[in-house]
């Protein structure tokens, strides 16, 4: 009886490990042991890129503007390799983004599945940046199969900020690299510095991260460790960050906490029946958001 119980516990623990991993076929198992890139080295490269490229400022002529946010398109396939997978909903996002009422769009990571061919598909389907500005974040899937090299080569930094300037105000947008499940030492120091030195100059502050912060349901997706959450929650509370928008978990959830609303996005994934795009509307009096169901878009 005792041996049977012990065997059952061993089997349960092994199965639990696989269950947690949310294993799919199009993943880079090597990242369990020796990932090809580490967060601190990615941040150093991003910093170098930021030093040689101008901080981006978009200017809008009206006091009211709107941007779109999506995440987890997984171009290249989520469960199996298919370089055209993920483009159906992604194309819908680009069509929406090109509408004149939208100032820019952001994708909060897991845009592709990490292979170079997937990045090529992404690049070919993105609009002209000078007409329709876009901002991309790195997610863990983008880093698979040595994907960081391609991301950096095509799009540059994965940690940066930009602003949107109306005739009377400016809003700050901070994009983080959380693809490794931690911001790392350098990026955290950078974030603290940006919030301490820049935040006060702006009306609103929005933070974007691939990895979501809170566990509203049981899921195999990883969050930042609790010690890191403590620091981030305190930073966002004391600096009055308006919104923290993330993806990763594929299922929408909202957490309201003081001045800050934490939003986890629905996955843009083609196979997701609940795929949606977040529409962020900023006006002189308030900031609001709503979700556009992709089923309703042709």
């Amino acid at each position, binding site marked *: *009886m*005792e041996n049977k*119980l*012990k065997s059952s*516990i061993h089997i349960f*623990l092994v199965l*639990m490990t696989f269950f*947690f*991993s*949310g294993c799919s076929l199009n*993943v*880079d*198992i*090597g*990242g*369990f*042991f020796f*990932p090809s890139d*580490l*967060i601190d080295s990615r941040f150093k490269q991003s910093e170098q890129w930021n030093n040689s490229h101008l901080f981006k400022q978009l200017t809008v002529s009206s006091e009211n503007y709107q941007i779109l946010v999506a995440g987890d398109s997984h171009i290249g396939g989520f469960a199996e390799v298919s370089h055209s997978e993920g483009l159906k909903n992604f194309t819908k996002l680009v069509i929406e983004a090109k509408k004149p009422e939208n100032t820019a769009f952001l994708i909060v990571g897991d845009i592709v599945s990490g292979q170079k061919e997937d990045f090529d598909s992404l690049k070919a389907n993105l609009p002209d940046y000078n007409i329709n500005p876009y901002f991309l974040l790195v997610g*863990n899937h983008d*880093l*698979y199969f040595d994907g960081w090299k391609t991301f950096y080569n095509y799009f540059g930094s994965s940690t940066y900020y930009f602003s949107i300037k109306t005739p009377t105000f400016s809003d700050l947008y901070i994009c983080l690299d959380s*693809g*490794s*499940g*931690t*911001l*790392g*030492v350098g990026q*955290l120091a950078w974030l603290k510095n940006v919030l301490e030195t820049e935040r006060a100059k702006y009306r609103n502050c929005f933070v974007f991260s691939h*990895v979501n912060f*809170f*566990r*509203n349901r*049981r899921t*195999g*997706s*990883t*969050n*930042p*460790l*609790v*010690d*890191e*959450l*403590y*620091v981030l*929650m*305190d930073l966002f*509370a*004391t600096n009055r960050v308006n919104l923290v928008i993330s993806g990763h978990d594929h299922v929408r959830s909202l*957490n*309201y*906490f*003081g*001045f800050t609303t*934490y939003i986890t996005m629905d996955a843009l994934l083609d196979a997701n029946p609940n795929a949606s795009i977040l529409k962020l509307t900023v006006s002189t009096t308030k900031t609001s958001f709503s979700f556009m169901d992709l089923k309703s878009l042709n």
Partner: protein
Amino acid sequence: MQKSKNNSIKLMKYSILLFFICWHNLVYSQVSVDTYLETGSTNVSAGLFGNFSTQISALFGSFSVSTGGLLNFSNANTSVFSAYSIQAANEFKILNLPVNIAALYLWKPFSADLRESDFGLLAKFRTKHWGYQLGINSRIYYFTNSARQKYNFADSVATSIWEPFNLMYRLSYYQSLGKKWDFEACVTNFDRYIIEQETNPLLQAKFSYKLNDKLLFYSDLGYMQAGLLNMRVNTFGLFLRGAVLWKIN
């Protein structure tokens, strides 16, 4: 005024009664003190940190209670007192096996304005070489009352986040290294004053030396990683602990 005075006297009577019950029970229980010093570094500690903890436990037959606190010294920390825990446990026979079931509470004032409270249930079972702990916890992050006033939050503003369910686990392997030395290696998502999300396991190795029936010295080496289930493993932190466990009576 008179009513308030009566209430105070009542409260004092109950406190004295409670004190005598505790004192009486302590006299007839086995009391132990577990104290450790710890140093390490994490991605958020801004250099090395130092921790000091003391936990007092009392064992009454198969029932035990323990309580402890943690002092933290680091460049990143705003307050030195950084955690409090209390736990009550009892040993049960389940399928004829001795299973220890504990109810626990953990409180962490992790910033000037924010706190965390954890409530959990944990079952422990051990054989000669293997140890299993499995449980659940529920976590609440919240603003303090003074922070709510400082920020002047309206009543409609949410000031807490509740994570209803998290799995706690610890799988240990024990190996005796002679009469006085023991070794334990484990994978777990919780430690004395932290409960990580179930997707963030940490690794620990423990060496212990039993000086005599009353004194045990042990040392823990811990490795914390981030991104395991993202398949992007990055080091998050390391810690080294030196401790003494003293069984007083």
